[in-house]
């Protein structure tokens, strides 16, 4: 289908400084775990977005000097000539697709712990980081200021040499230039502190110097947070940002406008649990109101209608996307080709971000199993090779995330017939009830995207309401059988703390329940509910929120030091805490139940087992651990036996997803995808090795 003319405006070129973007789609700076030291992964990852239609693609934050070393987390680096070579490949590959390359020059100040370089970061004032514990900066004197500005200039020249078209002086997320602008970080009394003019001086001078050095060849971009949501201490739109824009508008070629500081940057990279797309538009529009330069900005844009609205409403000139571009690198192309129902929309779960927050591992994505696999596994999100064994028929038992993704990819790979057989009346597995938790509605996109795709694939048939037993599977007539029967929450309190069940825990009792009993089967609880959460991610807190909203008196007990610690990595923690606090959910940490009875729970402190506490409750919810639903697999393997399967013509027998081991939905989707990609390998059960980008030594040469 041709593009709908109402989206034409998204495909109009736009001038930024000395460069032209061919359309309005911009991949905002974001990390992928590759930096400058995995240059092949880095280049292939970014090039995929250019192939998908993005007019400009940026690096992640890109350190200008060893003093800004974020190890354990992975940033790009432009410290020396070798970094120029490594990041240069990314530029070349972007240019081959007609896209511009952008570098986000970054100096972290106290937030960069310098764990590899062992340097001391510098900052406007000597206050330890609010983000990276125990990192103290050196307070800058005027010489320090000149020196660090020199780092920006040298890095900008290296960026130009590498081939970058756009060079940032990055402040957002509380990094150095924004630290100078912000009273929370800047307590100086000299001409770099105090009045707005003074607080703006460092950033203004730095932009001037970078502009002077490379401005004829590169567009100068400034990324600024226009609200830190921390009152007088933080950066404020009216007081600081709009005057700053007016002050330097002349020398800036493009504004990149967002909100938040670093310690709550979920206000920028918004979880769908708390915010809808386009939530930053009021701030972006305010800046556009005072600037004569193009304004770009994010807002988890997946809908082309909202993108057009943002431009027509005078909020943005350029649509910047981060997570939507990870979830679907071909977002622009799909809009251009009128294939809106093929867009794999980001669900706003922030699993991608969790990897950066954990520090180091390559990014993954719940929706897009190929994210980060472009180079090392050679996966293309939109291209699939016909399988060598495509004349086989495949039976997949279970239409949860793993089974659906596997069916979709096997369909794309041209298998003769794929039957996706499900006991329930629709696809989705656990993702039918998880999106029913408060705020998680968008997570249903995991199911909806795959349903639409499966429906389009002629060779894939979905068969609902059909529970196959082992005999049924054996006699089904498939050459390849894939078991994807998911998992379930333990009903007896088995948990990863004591590695044992909890005496008395029994979800077959009316007063005791598991999450899926409540969410999928409608089991009700009494008024006083104790939730035992040894899982530490979204399930326990979501249930607490739901039950508290229904008016129950909820106690949330965990053996961990925090509730839902994984939510710190997904940036959901701050607002989740606020919510539960408002709902008066009682939070109990470092406690593990030792006995559960109707009406009463006894718990012990994990570091003081003799210290017992009694809890009078009406109901107990067990969020202790998940188990694989492997009954069908075991029966086929152990009772029927592989030989009997082979004699029925079944040459491939595999299992995927939670029924192997319970895990993140992202990892289930990956597992289903991986098996389908490698269904014609020598042994599809074992993942093929991926290319490891590393330094390999010549032993003899080293020893010589």
């Amino acid at each position, binding site marked *: 289908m041709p593009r709908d003319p109402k989206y034409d405006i998204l495909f109009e070129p736009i001038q930024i400084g000395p460069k032209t973007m061919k359309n309005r789609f911009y991949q905002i700076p974001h990390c992928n775990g590759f930096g400058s030291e995995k240059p092949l992964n880095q280049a292939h990852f970014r090039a995929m977005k250019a192939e998908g239609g993005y007019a400009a693609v940026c690096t992640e934050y890109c350190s200008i000097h060893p003093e800004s070393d974020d190890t354990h987390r992975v940033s790009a680096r432009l410290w020396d000539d070798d970094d120029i070579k490594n990041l240069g490949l990314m530029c070349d590959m972007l240019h081959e697709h007609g896209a511009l390359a952008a570098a986000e020059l970054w100096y972290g100040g106290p937030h960069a712990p310098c764990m590899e370089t062992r340097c001391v970061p510098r900052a406007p004032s000597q206050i330890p980081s609010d983000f990276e514990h125990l990192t103290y900066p050196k307070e800058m004197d005027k010489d320090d200021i000149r020196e660090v500005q020199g780092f920006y200039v040298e890095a900008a020249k290296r960026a130009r040499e590498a081939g970058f078209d756009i060079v940032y002086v990055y402040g957002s997320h509380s990094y150095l230039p924004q630290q100078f602008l912000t009273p929370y970080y800047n307590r100086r009394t000299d001409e770099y502190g105090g009045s707005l003019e003074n607080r703006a001086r460092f950033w203004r001078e730095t932009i001037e110097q970078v502009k002077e050095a490379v401005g004829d060849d590169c567009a100068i971009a400034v990324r600024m947070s226009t609200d830190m949501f921390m009152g007088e201490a933080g950066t404020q739109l009216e007081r600081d940002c709009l005057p700053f824009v007016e002050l330097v508008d002349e020398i800036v070629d493009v504004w990149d406008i967002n909100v938040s500081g670093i310690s709550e940057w979920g206000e920028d990279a918004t979880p769908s649990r708390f915010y809808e797309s386009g939530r930053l538009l009021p701030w972006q529009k305010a800046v556009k109101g005072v600037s004569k330069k193009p304004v770009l900005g994010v807002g988890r844009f997946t*809908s082309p209608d909202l993108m057009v*609205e943002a431009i027509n409403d005078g909020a943005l000139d350029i649509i910047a996307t981060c997570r939507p571009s990870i979830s679907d690198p071909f977002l622009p192309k799909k809009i251009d080709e009128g294939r809106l129902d093929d867009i794999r929309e980001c669900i706003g779960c922030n699993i991608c971000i969790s990897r950066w927050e954990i520090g180091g591992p390559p990014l993954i994505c719940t929706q897009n199993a190929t994210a980060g696999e472009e180079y090392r596994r050679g996966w293309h999100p939109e291209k699939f090779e016909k399988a060598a064994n495509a004349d086989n028929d495949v039976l997949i038992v279970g239409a949860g995330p793993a089974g659906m993704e596997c069916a979709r990819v096997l369909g794309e790979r041209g298998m003769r017939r794929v039957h996706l057989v499900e006991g329930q009346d629709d696809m989705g597995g656990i993702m039918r009830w998880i999106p029913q938790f408060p705020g998680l509605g968008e997570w249903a996109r995991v199911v909806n995207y795959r349903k639409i795709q499966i429906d389009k694939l002629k060779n894939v*048939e979905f068969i609902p309401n059909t529970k196959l037993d082992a005999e049924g599977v054996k006699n089904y007539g*498939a050459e390849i059988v894939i078991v994807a029967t998911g998992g379930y929450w333990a009903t007896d309190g088995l948990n990863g703390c004591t590695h044992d069940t909890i005496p008395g825990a029994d979800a077959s009792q009316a007063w005791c329940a598991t999450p899926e009993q409540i969410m999928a089967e409608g089991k009700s609880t009494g008024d006083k509910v104790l939730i035992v959460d040894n899982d530490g991610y979204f399930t326990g807190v979501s249930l607490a929120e739901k039950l508290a909203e229904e008016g129950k008196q909820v106690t949330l007990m965990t053996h961990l030091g925090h509730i839902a610690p994984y939510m710190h990595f997904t940036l959901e923690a701050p607002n989740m805490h606020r919510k539960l606090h408002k709902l008066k959910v009682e939070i109990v940490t470092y406690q593990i139940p030792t006995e559960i009875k109707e009406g009463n729970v006894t718990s012990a402190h994990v570091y003081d087992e003799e210290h017992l506490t009694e809890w009078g409750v009406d109901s107990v919810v067990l969020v202790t651990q998940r188990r694989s639903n492997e009954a069908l697999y075991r029966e086929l393997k152990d009772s029927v036996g592989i030989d009997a399967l082979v004699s029925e013509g079944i040459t491939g027998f595999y299992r995927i997803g939670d029924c192997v081991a319970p895990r993140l939905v992202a990892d289930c989707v990956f597992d289903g995808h991986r098996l389908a990609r490698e269904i014609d390998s020598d042994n599809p059960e074992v993942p093929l090795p991926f290319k490891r980008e590393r330094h390999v030594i010549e032993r003899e040469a080293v020893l010589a």
Partner: protein
Amino acid sequence: MKVLVCVKQVAVLGDEVEFTDDERDVDPDYLDFALNEWDSYATEEALRLVEAAGSGEVVVVSVGDEDMEDGMRRCLAMGADRGIRVEAEGRLDPIQVARALAEVVQSESPDLVFAGVQSSDSVQAATGNALAGLLDLPSVAVVTKIDLGDGKATVNRELEGGLVDVVEVDTPAVITIQTGINEPRYATLRAIKQAEEKEIDMRQAGDLGEPGSRVRKMFVPPKGEGAEMLDGGAAEVAQRIKEIVQEKTA
């Protein structure tokens, strides 16, 4: 017990549509094909009756070119015993199809003849009734339940407004089957493979005569007045729909 089921492989529209040069049909390049939804219910009902009787056969019949066989194979995979295809090229209207089917019914002498209430592509709901007329057999249309007796059947006929008419009909009879009468079974891969081996007898059509109706022209209807196109994101559109409903129901 022998039930003959008339089935059709219907055209399914994609997102885009172009017409043939003579403007009397949709260009087949823009069509997908699938077994008519009603016919899978008819096949399932036939299978159940024969299974309940303990012996007999289900014969599926189509009129058309070789592409019709895909739909027939689906029915064979569900469990129908054999198929008969009356070879015919080009456009046929329901009367002509019924003439072709009538010859098959006469040669097979089934106890019951089933057809779907209608086909999802031409939606004329005529073939089954025309067939009964040609054969001078009793017929009941839009049936949602069948109780088979001796030489007769008690059937539920769906009427408007949720009403049901319970009628008794002598057999053999022609019955057109409504969706929802049962839950059609799915074919396993094995059954699909086995269906490839089942017999489909190909017969030449006799004189099918003149059609009872003719397509003069197909076109996209011109946009009428008074429609309001709602632009914007889902939330906005939903909001607007809510307002419109409130205005109209105020």
